[in-house]
C-alpha cells in the first residue's frame, strides 16, 4: 500500500481514529496497531506476513534466550545464530536469483548442468528494512543496551506500518520506550506531522516522479539517443529525484508517526550540502549509515588500528552497503566508489587547505556522477552513459520546469538559513484548523499531476 494512494487514504483515517480511541488501554491498542500494520503489509502480499511474523518470532526468541543467559559465550553464540538466520533469509529472497543465474552460467559452461532451480524469487516489500531492524534489536539485547520486551511489543516494533516498508531504520532503543506507556493524547505534534506529510507528498509526486518521467527514465533507457549535456542533466535530475523520492517517503512516514503520537529518527539532513563523502554519509540515509557503522564498521574494528586497517574496514562496509541495495554489480561498484571516496577523504584530511565551496563542488558532482552507476540497469548501460559525455550535442531535455525541479531540490539545501527547514518549523507551530484545509487543497493539486498509470512505487521499495 503506497502512502499516496486511495487505499491508504481510506486506511489511515480509520487507523488513526481507532488508535487514539484505544490508546489509553494498551491491552486493546497493542493488538489493534499490530493488526493494522499486518493489514497494511498484507495489501502488498498477504503471504509475506508469514515471513514478517517468522522474523519476529525468531528474533524475539533469540533475544529472550540471550537475555536469560548468564554465559557470555552462550550469548554470543545465540546472537551469531540469530543474525545468521536473519541474513540467510534476507540473502535467499534478495540474492537467490542473482546467484542461481550466475552459478548456472558457470556450471553449465563446464558441463556440470544447472545446480540450482532457475526461478525468479519474489522480493518481499521492505525485507531489508525489517531485517535490519531485527538484527539491531537482537544485537542491542546482546550488548545489554535494551531489555527484551514482551512479544507483542517486539512484533509492533518490527511491523509498525509507518516505517515498515522503507524505513527509517528505527532502533529498538528509540521505539520501545515509546511503547512503554500510552502516548499522551494532549501532546501530539499535529501540525508538524501534517506539514511533513505535505512536504513528502510534493517531493515524491510533483518533483521526483516528474523528473523521472521526463528526464531520467528516457535517458537511462536509451543512452545512445542522447548527447553529453542530456546525460549530465539526467545525472543531476536523478540526484534530485532519488532525494525527493526517498526523503519524501521518509517525511510522510515521520509525519504519519507523529499523528499517531510516535517520533522516528531523522533520516536526511540536507545531504547535498555535504563537503566530503564522510559528511555526505552523515546526512544521507542517516539511519542506514549508523546501522552500518554500529553493526558492521565498528565490529570489524572501525578505526581502532592502523590507517590501512581503517581503510579496509571502510571499504568492506561500503561494498556491503552497496550490495544491500540489490543483487547487481552496479550497486557493488557504486558502494566501492563511495568507499574510495571515504578513504580519500580520510587520507587527505588536514593535508590541504581547500575552501568549503570547492569541497562542496567536488563532492556534489562526484555524488551525482556516481548516481549514474547506481541508477543504470547494467554496467554496460552505465558505461554507455559515461561514453556519451564524449558526444557533445545540444541538450534536448532541458526545459524550465526541469531546471526548476532540480533547483528547488538542491539550492535550498545550500542556503545557510535553509528556508524550507524554517518554513517547516514555522508551519509546525500553526493551528491544524488552518493546515488541514490547505493540505486537502494541496492533495487535489498534487493528485492532478499523477498520470493515468498512477504513482510509481518509491525507489527504495525495491531495496
Amino acid at each position: 500500500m503506497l502512502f499516496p494512494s486511495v487505499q491508504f487514504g481510506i486506511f489511515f483515517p480509520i487507523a488513526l481514529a481507532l488508535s487514539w480511541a484505544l490508546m489509553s488501554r494498551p491491552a486493546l491498542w497493542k493488538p489493534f496497531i499490530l493488526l493494522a500494520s499486518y493489514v497494511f503489509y498484507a495489501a502488498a502480499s498477504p503471504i509475506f506476513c508469514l515471513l514478517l511474523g517468522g522474523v519476529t518470532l525468531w528474533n524475539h526468541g533469540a533475544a529472550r534466550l540471550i537475555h536469560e543467559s548468564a554465559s557470555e559465550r552462550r550469548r554470543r553464540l545465540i546472537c551469531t545464530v540469530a543474525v545468521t538466520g536473519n541474513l540467510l533469509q534476507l540473502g535467499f529472497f534478495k540474492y537467490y536469483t542473482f546467484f542461481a543465474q550466475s552459478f548456472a552460467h558457470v556450471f553449465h559452461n563446464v558441463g556440470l548442468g544447472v545446480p540450482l532451480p532457475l526461478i525468479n524469487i519474489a522480493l518481499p516489500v521492505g525485507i531489508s528494512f525489517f531485517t535490519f531492524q531485527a538484527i539491531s534489536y537482537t544485537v542491542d539485547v546482546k550488548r545489554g543496551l535494551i531489555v527484551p520486551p514482551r512479544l507483542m511489543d517486539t512484533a509492533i516494533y518490527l511491523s509498525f506500518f509507518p516505517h515498515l516498508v522503507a524505513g527509517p531504520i528505527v532502533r529498538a532503543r528509540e521505539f520501545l520506550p515509546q511503547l512503554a506507556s500510552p502516548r499522551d493524547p494532549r501532546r501530539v505534534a499535529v501540525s508538524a506531522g501534517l506539514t511533513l506529510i505535505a512536504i513528502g507528498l510534493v517531493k515524491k509526486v510533483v518533483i521526483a516522479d516528474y523528473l523521472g518521467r521526463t528526464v531520467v527514465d528516457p535517458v537511462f533507457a536509451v543512452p545512445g539517443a542522447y548527447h553529453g549535456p542530456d546525460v549530465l542533466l539526467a545525472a543531476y535530475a536523478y540526484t534530485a529525484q532519488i532525494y525527493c523520492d526517498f526523503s519524501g517517503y521518509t517525511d510522510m512516514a515521520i509525519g504519519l508517526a507523529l499523528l499517531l503520537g510516535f517520533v522516528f529518527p531523522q533520516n536526511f539532513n540536507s545531504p547535498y550540502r555535504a563537503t566530503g563523502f564522510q559528511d555526505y554519509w552523515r546526512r544521507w540515509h542517516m539511519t542506514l549509515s549508523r546501522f552500518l557503522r554500529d553493526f558492521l564498521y565498528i565490529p570489524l574494528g572501525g578505526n581502532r588500528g592502523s590507517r590501512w586497517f581503517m581503510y579496509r574496514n571502510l571499504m568492506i562496509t561500503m561494498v556491503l552497503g552497496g550490495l544491500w541495495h540489490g543483487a547487481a554489480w552496479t550497486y557493488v561498484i557504486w558502494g566501492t566508489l563511495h568507499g574510495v571516496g571515504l578513504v580519500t577523504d580520510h587520507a587527505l584530511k588536514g593535508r590541504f587547505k581547500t575552501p568549503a565551496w570547492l569541497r562542496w563542488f567536488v563532492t556534489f558532482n562526484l555524488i551525482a556522477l556516481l548516481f549514474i552507476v547506481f541508477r543504470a540497469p547494467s554496467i554496460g548501460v552505465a558505461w554507455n552513459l559515461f561514453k556519451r559525455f564524449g558526444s557533445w550535442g545540444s541538450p534536448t531535455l532541458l526545459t524550465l520546469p526541469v531546471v526548476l525541479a532540480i533547483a528547488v531540490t538542491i539550492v535550498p539545501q545550500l542556503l545557510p538559513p535553509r528556508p524550507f527547514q524554517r518554513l517547516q518549523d514555522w508551519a509546525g507551530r500553526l493551528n491544524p484548523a488552518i493546515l488541514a484545509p490547505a493540505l486537502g487543497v494541496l492533495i487535489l493539486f498534487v493528485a492532478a499531476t499523477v498520470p493515468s498509470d498512477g504513482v510509481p512505487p518509491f525507489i527504495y521499495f525495491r531495496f
Partner: protein
Amino acid sequence: MPPEPKQPKQPKHSDDNLMERFEVAGARKFRARDAIIAVAIIAGILIVCSGSSILKAGNEMNHGIGRDAVLAVGKPAGWIAGRLPLRSAANTVTDWLSPDPNLSGLSGFNDEIATGANAGVPLVTPDAFNPSQLGDPAPPRARLHTLLVTGDSMSEPMDSYLAQTLSPDGVRVIQDPHIGTGISTTLLVDWGKLSAYQVQHYHPNAVVVFIGANDAYSMPGPNGKLVNCCSVEWATIYAQRVRQMMNTYRQDGVARVYWLTIPTMRDPARSKITNVVNAAIEVAAEPWMAQIRIINTVPVFTPGNHYRDSMTINGQPTIVRQSDGIHLNDAGSQLAAKVVLDSVDQDFTF
C-alpha cells in the same frame, strides 16, 4: 533460574538520532482529537471535490477485499461528489496539471461498439494477404523513420532494448507504455482514443504493440449490456477493439504493425484468459495481413502453452520471467526485442 534483568546501558551514539528535534524546533502540541479532526477535514475536502476518483480507483483494482473496501467508500463518495458543484470546479482548476495526453474529440471504443452484425458477406480485400504467404516477392523494404513501441507493462523493458538497438541507426523510437491499462477497460485509458492520439502525435511508420496482461474486464456488448470474460461474445468484442486499434495504427496501409501475443502465464486461470486474448488478436488481424504481423510469443517462451521460468538462450540457461509469473524479465525482454527486430527487418531498412 534466569538471572536478574540487566539494566540497559546508555547508548554509545545518542547524538545522531535527533529524537528531540521536534521539541527543539518548537513544534506546537495539540490534542489527539485535533489530529483526527484535521485528517477528517482533509478526507472531506477530497470526497466533495474528487469523490468520483475514489470510485474510479476502486473500479480499476483487481477483485478482492481491497477493491471492495475502496468501492465501499468510493460509491457514496462518488454519489456525494456528483451532487455538488465542487468537483467540476476542482477539475477546471487542476486540469492543466495533468501529464496525460488530451484524448477529447477522438473516437474511442465505446463510440464504435462494433458487433460484427453487418448484413451480407464482408468483402475480402487485397490487404488481407501477406504477399509472402502467396509466394509473391515481398515489397521493397522501406526506410524505418519512427517506431512506436506501446502497450501495457508487458512492453517494458522490451521498448528500451528496441530503442537501444535502433536509435544508433537514426531511427526515432517512441516508448509509450501505459502501465495497468487494458483493451477491455477504458477506466485508465481508452486505447481506441489513445491509439488515434499516438498516430496523430508521433506519425510512426511502424508500431510494436505488447498488451493484454490486464485484460479480463467485462465490456459492453451490442445492446450496451456487459459481457463477462471470456465467452465467445467477449472475445468478439475484444477482437473488434483490437481491430479498431490495428486499423488506426496501420494508417490506411502506410504503416506496419507488429502485435505480440501474450506468453503463457504461471497461473492457469490467467493463462485461460491470455489464450482467449491471443485468439482474438489473431482474428482481429485477418483483414490486413499485408500490414500486420502477429508475433506469437508462445512458441518462443512457453512452447506447448507450458509455463517456464527459464530457457536456454545462446546456449546458456537463463531466467526469462519475473517473479510474478506474468512479465518477462530483462533477459526475456531482450529476447522478445530480438524476435520483433527480426520481423521488422523483413519490412524495413534501418
